[in-house]
């Protein structure tokens, strides 16, 4: 029941538009690159200083000086550019990146996001996530709807925040939802998932208007 990681990525890829500059976070978001529709062109930004990420290199083309923000070896596409971290975050903070896709531990009905710190566990740091959620024109969160029966789609986040009132859309294994002034607006169900199941898995206020269609994957 519900989408696997690749299906979540595939659904999110439908949000891409021709000409978009997109920053993909680590985890599910990275997989989105595999599902970019063929008829559009998007440019992937890596906050460590690359605009125009290409596929992973073939073994003979691995280059230590060419990595993505997840520290994986990558390549670059035609028309790419390299730059320093200050310029990279000028792009992000200045709102030049059209879309940020990232993971989260929790999202609140006001659009707050918690994604970087679990008290009591090791803190690795926020990296670029706080900059991204504070400034991207559009933010989509890719996440699991709940964890061991505990909803992660909440009235209020319980974990330390990454950013406030910033998330626009959430794609989970169960549903697509928008954050609206009145709560989470349910847009689509995962194939085979019922509205009742989504209601049961959602702690935050869920707005259900009319028939909720199934996602098309």
């Amino acid at each position, binding site marked *: 029941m519900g989408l696997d990681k690749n299906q979540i990525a595939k659904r999110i890829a439908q949000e891409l538009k021709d000409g978009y500059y997109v920053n993909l976070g680590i985890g599910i978001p990275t997989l989105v690159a595999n599902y970019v529709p063929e008829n559009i062109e998007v440019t992937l930004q890596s*906050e460590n200083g690359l605009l125009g990420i290409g596929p*992973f290199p073939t073994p003979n083309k691995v280059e230590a*000086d060419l990595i993505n923000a997840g520290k994986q070896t990558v390549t670059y596409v035609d028309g790419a550019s390299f730059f320093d971290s200050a310029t990279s975050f000028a792009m992000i903070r200045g709102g030049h990146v059209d879309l940020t896709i990232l993971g989260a531990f929790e999202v609140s009905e006001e659009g707050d996001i918690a994604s970087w710190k679990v008290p009591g566990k090791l803190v690795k740091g*926020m990296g670029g996530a706080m900059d991204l959620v*504070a400034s991207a024109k559009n933010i989509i969160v890719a996440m699991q709807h709940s964890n061991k029966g505990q909803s992660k789609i909440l009235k209020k986040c319980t974990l330390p925040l990454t950013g406030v009132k910033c998330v626009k859309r959430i794609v989970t294994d169960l549903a697509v939802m928008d954050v609206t002034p009145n709560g989470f607006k349910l847009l689509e169900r995962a194939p085979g998932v019922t509205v009742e199941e989504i209601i049961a898995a959602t702690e935050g206020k869920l707005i259900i208007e009319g028939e909720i269609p199934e996602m098309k994957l």
Partner: protein
Amino acid sequence: MNKVVKNAEEAIKGMSDNMTVMFGGFGLCGIPENVIRVLAQTQIKGLVCISNNCGVDDFGLGFLLKNKQIRKMVASYVGENAEFERQMLSGELEVELNPQGTLAERIRAGGAGIPAFFVPAGYGTEVAIGKEEREFNGKMHILEHALTADFAVVKAWKGDTNGNLIYKYTASNFNNMMAMAGKITIAEVEELVPAGQLDPNFIHTPGIFVQRIFQGVNYEKRIEQVTTSNPK
């Protein structure tokens, strides 16, 4: 004017206990391997290190960590590193975490004579605690302060005897701004050429920011995650 020094030993002359030192690099990409290696052989301790990351257990700034030469770490993403975790949890190591873009901009500001500036990143989070908040254009921002250092240590691909630097691909990262923000900036380069051999139109770091430069040796350039695709 002579900025060229023989090696890392000569480059770190004057570096001493409790100084603030910036190290370029993102993960293990573009880190100044030579200076770190030599610094780990000194008795210098109590350092405040500013670097996006803190190396791994057996490479990069991990060397200095293992020797307990670092008192405080100012970074954005750390802990690919068991010793780091141990020292942080035991209270031996002080850690200040910054949003990555804020860290980058604080360093640039330090080099550019801008003591403080407003950013939206971190507003409403624990990063904002104790910081001035202000609304601009309907959006809340927090005031962040510049970072400078007694020494900045950067790594470039090519450099010339005037201190001009060129980075390769994503190895520019924090190096370019850190070069601006050191009272003394040390650049180690893979290839050092006479002034006049680099195209002046394509210099990433103008020489004015660099006080000492040398050609490094034995670059390992370790990769954290080799990810490949199949040849078609």
